């Protein structure tokens, strides 16, 4: 067991799955010799020269080729260099990957993983900070996973690769090198569709995922908060959420993405539908602004700051 960061944990998961299963292959831009722009695939092409493929600059092609590979029987892991470039693949993901099982009544399937760095945090050029996970959650037939730590990144990616259906795997760039954690050398899978109670509490259920989870953890001092790391956003773990809400009666949902139709809307609507009588206060969403994500200089003002989270926690307590 070693203390490693998320980049290393993902690399380890890929390596172990490739060792174990010859059908796992990687494709994407710069994933070979360069090791990917975040070095996620570093050293892998040397180990698996016949199963890692640098592609031309063509995101829809990457996704489409991965669909064809998956239908043939491989388990491709495709990298989209930044989530801002995944929009080019939406047709392949929504019109094909998500429907091949249904369209062929199970004769063909699409065991495909699309990995992509996501979210704010590295002050890059435009379109390198997207966090539009809600788009993918709205499409049945796709699973959406967001890790929040080196440990769960490894276990979730292993599950995603083994999953018989297409998974969009969103890696918070802000967390890539921020945290080191003990990660077992042995392979382990963390089941999808299962949320994780990061910390128990009795007054407020705070739901977050990815990098916002850490901002939540920095904000809850002085509150008796139960913190849920959703991990799999679609399909999400209704049971764990409801059990917590029934206990606490107060809910704050925190995400980085823009408010309108963000994933927080779904959670809020769901909880209110199912646990209204248990609620002691309105559910509060703390989210990014309703605006185009700004470039580096204004980036810090877009996503929920600690103060905003604290304010929301106070609000639900004082209601």
């Amino acid at each position, binding site marked *: 067991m070693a203390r490693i960061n998320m980049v290393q944990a993902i690399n380890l998961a890929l390596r172990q799955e490739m060792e174990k299963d010859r059908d796992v*292959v990687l494709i994407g831009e710069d994933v070979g010799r360069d090791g990917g722009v975040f070095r996620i695939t570093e050293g892998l092409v040397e180990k698996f020269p*016949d*199963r890692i*493929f640098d*592609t*031309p600059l*063509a995101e*829809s*092609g990457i*996704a*489409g*080729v*991965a*669909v*064809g*590979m*998956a*239908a*043939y*029987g*491989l388990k*491709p892991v495709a990298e989209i260099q930044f989530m801002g470039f995944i929009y080019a693949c939406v*047709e*392949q993901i929504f*019109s*094909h990957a998500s429907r*091949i*099982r*249904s*369209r*062929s*009544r*199970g*004769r*063909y*399937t699409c065991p495909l993983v699309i990995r992509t760095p996501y979210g704010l945090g590295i002050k890059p050029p435009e379109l390198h900070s997207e966090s539009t996970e809600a788009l993918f959650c709205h499409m*049945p*037939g796709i*699973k959406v996973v967001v890790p929040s730590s080196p440990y769960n990144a490894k276990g979730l990616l292993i599950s995603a690769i083994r999953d*018989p*259906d297409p998974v969009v795997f969103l890696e918070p760039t802000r967390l890539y090198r921020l945290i080191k954690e003990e990660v077992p050398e042995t392979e382990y899978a963390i089941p999808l*569709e299962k949320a994780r109670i990061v910390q128990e509490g009795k007054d407020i259920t705070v739901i977050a995922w990815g990098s916002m989870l850490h901002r939540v953890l920095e904000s809850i001092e002085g509150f008796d908060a139960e913190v849920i790391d959703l991990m799999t956003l679609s*399909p999400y*773990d*209704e*049971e764990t959420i409801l059990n917590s809400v029934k206990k606490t009666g107060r809910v704050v949902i925190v995400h980085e993405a823009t408010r309108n139709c963000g994933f927080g809307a779904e959670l809020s609507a769901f909880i209110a539908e199912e646990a209204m009588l248990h609620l002691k206060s309105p559910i509060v969403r703390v989210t990014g602004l309703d605006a185009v994500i700004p470039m580096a200089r204004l980036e810090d003002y877009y996503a929920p700051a600690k103060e905003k989270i604290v304010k929301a926690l106070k609000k639900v307590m004082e209601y």
Partner: protein
Amino acid sequence: MPETIIEKIEVKRLQILYENGNVDESLMPDLSDNDLKKMFELFILARQFDQRALKLHAEGRLGTYASILGQEASQIGSAYTLEKSDRVFPSFREMGVYITLGYPIWMLFQYWTGDERGMRTPDDLNIFPVSVPVGTHTPHAVGAAFAAKIKGHKTATAAYFGDGGSSKGDFHEGLNIAGVYKLPVIFICQNNQWAISLPREKQTAAKTIAQKAFGYGFEGIQVDGNDIFAVYKATKDALAKARAGSGPTLIECFTYRMADHTTADDASRYRSKEDVEKWKARDPLLRLKLYMERKGLWTQQYEDEVKKRVTDFVDSEIKKHEAAAMPEQKDILNFTYKELTQRQKKELETL
């Protein structure tokens, strides 16, 4: 050498069987009498299927349907060369390909009734379900070819699409990747001169669709798409090349959509009768018949017999299709993921 020529490209067109039934013997592929009769019978079956589908639609017994009339040589001639283990990625106007590969006829009717079960390809075939978004399945064929290459299989893959499909970004991305990795895939474009109301000249300013391949570093060839032997030969050669590891080929079958775009279309709004008339003389079945007649393989009686047999067969397939149970509501949920989600389990109870 200040202004130099650094690349020369020649686009070829292949023709073997002429309208009068003559063939160019030097190019004629090796086809037994039995092959010729099989091709002829597939022609009759494909036409019969097509006519019956249109009729069922008119009677309200089938959904929107896209006729293949006029394009049978392109479809049968190419599919005839494919192995059952090859992976085939059709668009929506490829019923002749399905039929040639032996896809159950009743399931095709089932599909066009708006029933996903009709696209559950039998296990011994490797034809992919219809791709509705035009041109977007070309990368799938590339991916399957990539997979075959990675696994060391001798499998080739084929993507079918139209002249319209050649304008989509995915066509470009897919073909380019296939070129870079020299993948065992063939791209079969049925240039039927129309994409709904858009004539071929407005689809692209390129003189041919075939020449687009050279932008991806591999060969494109145009064939007379109403000449089943030319289509057969070009496809067979391309498949051999693919299996030999020499990379992809684009085949443009120059043909014509004789019918409306689909049963929802009225082609008289945008094209003249004369235009269609011109192509009647180029009927792909007619010239095959003339050739076979000369070889003593075709007689009116033979054709009548085949027609009778095929009609009875299609009748029984329609019956089979119409006798099949309706799909179940729960299948809406059941095929979304391998397992039902927490929420779907609850939804199942509400159905």
